[in-house]
């Protein structure tokens, strides 16, 4: 019994270790090209050993206005996260506390919105932004990202609030607390992990989006994801500089998600079920 347990633990670790290697090696390889001098990138056959250099980073910083690109990405992700939480958290609360069939139907409606393919909304949204004069500006990307994000936040917070016993809020209201006070001072602090996860997902989705950003922003409002695409295939750009630029677009998110992994995993699970 115990011997077989030990054997299965060893099997499990083997499978998991293999998965870790497979998940990380391709990513680390592109990251590593950023530290390779040109001749090592084009080494034949490809080599894993090289003398590291920061040359590619220097080149990227002269070719691209990296801080401006990061600020654009941050503006889009931050605005979308703020707007999505502002509308999505109260909506999730309302749907969890309302006791009608309508509320459940509405919650499913929000989940369904999350599944709409961008192909069905992008073109009408593009024309809408053109007509109201927002086409080209980063705010238009934040606005369309917010539809998907707000829908996800509503659904996820609905799930968090539903598993929160309502007796505490009822007691507070009996003691003279306002309805908003019961939501804001009692329910909201109790779902703090959900709020953290919601912020993470909004930032993750908008930071990683590139379809909307590619077609909706002009040159000076472009986020880093779009810059990466335009860098790719340009004459001066080698895989080394591309790898360096990819650092700036992936590292912030990967660090946040690894650091707050507990919330990420919990939130993802809640957002799905």
């Amino acid at each position, binding site marked *: 019994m115990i011997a077989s347990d030990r054997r299965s633990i060893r099997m499990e670790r083997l499978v998991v270790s293999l998965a870790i290697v497979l998940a990380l090696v391709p990513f680390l390889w592109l990251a590593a090209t950023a530290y390779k001098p040109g001749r090592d990138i084009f080494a*034949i056959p490809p080599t894993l050993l090289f003398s590291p250099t920061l040359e590619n980073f220097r080149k990227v910083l002269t070719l691209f206005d990296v801080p401006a690109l990061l600020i654009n990405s941050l503006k889009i992700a931050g605005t979308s996260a703020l707007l999505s939480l502002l509308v999505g958290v109260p909506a999730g609360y309302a749907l969890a506390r309302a006791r009608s069939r309508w509320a459940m139907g509405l919650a499913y409606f929000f989940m369904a919105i999350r599944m709409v*393919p961008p*192909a*069905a909304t992008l073109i009408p949204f*593009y024309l809408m932004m053109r007509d109201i004069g927002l086409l080209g500006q980063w705010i238009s990307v934040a606005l369309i990202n917010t539809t998907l994000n707000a*829908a996800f936040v509503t659904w996820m917070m609905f799930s968090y609030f539903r598993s929160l016993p309502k007796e505490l809020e009822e007691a507070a209201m009996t003691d*003279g607390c306002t*309805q908003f006070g019961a939501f804001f001072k009692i329910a909201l602090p109790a779902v703090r992990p959900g709020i953290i996860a919601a912020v993470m997902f909004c930032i993750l989705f908008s930071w*990683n989006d590139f379809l909307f950003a590619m077609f909706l922003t002009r040159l000076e409002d472009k986020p880093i994801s779009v810059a990466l695409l335009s860098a790719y295939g340009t004459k001066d750009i080698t895989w080394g500089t591309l790898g360096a630029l990819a650092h700036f677009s992936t590292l912030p998110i990967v660090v946040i998600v690894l650091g707050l992994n507990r919330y990420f*995993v919990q939130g993802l699970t809640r957002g799905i079920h």
Partner: protein
Amino acid sequence: MSDLSLPVPARALSPLGFYQRRRWFLVAMAAPALAYILVVAVWPILQGMYFSLFDYNLLKPHRTKFVGLQNYLEVFDTPANRAAFVNTVIFTAAAVTIELVLGFGLALALWRDSRFNRIALALVLVPVTITPLVVGLIWRALLLPDFGLLGYWLAHWGLSDPRGLLADPHSALATLIAIDVWEWTPMMALILLAGLKSLPSDILEASRTDGATGWQRVRLIVLPLMLPAVLLALMIRSVDAFRVFDSVYVTTGGGPGNSTNTLMLQAVKEGLQFFDIGAASTLGNVTLLCIALIAGGLIAVIRRADRRANG
């Protein structure tokens, strides 16, 4: 029932009763989100449905005319659209099936609650968090036949076309499926792991003491209990895979020829490169319809499975 047991607050002496005020408060809390979604998501969807009934090109606006359902009747007349549809279906079916099998294995391996597994889960999830665009770049670089870590050896040993896997119409779609598997298997594993962790532990314990072997336990007890979670994971990943865009756009752009064209890619090309709004909207709605059918079908099956599981 529980409505009646709610204690009436001391301050409920306003003209409206407490329950009525409660209802209006909750409506007001949900209203901004609903209004936002209606204006910024539902309205564009309806507009797209309207556009799809017209022969409408932004470059020739004066030639706009109402054609009814003609766009839909002719949508699969062009080879590009047909290829896009077939490729999207193959891509979704193959990628999601492989992800389900591998994801289930990974979830079983990660099931035991230990420090090792918690850290492993965080690391394994890295592909899910990387910008999909960068995922495309990573694989494009890895598979380059002249100096890619993988592509060089594949070409060297004659396992791929000398131009690389992505440039060969016979292997390009399969390669894109493999990339999707790399990116999303961890997500599949996470959804299934959540299902595994919520299984009733007494049943599993009983089967252990009854002397069932590991494989018997998985096949006879875990799999049937996991059916709703499996279906849910299938639905989420199918809906996502059906909308694939980023990784295809950056690795092959739909080529060579139409061998990796997808519905999303074709819709975006029609709309924002050729400015054919009618054709693009039609493709967008076909994609939307397919996704609705996939999601609706699987939700119906999930409900039936749930009902059977709960008696």
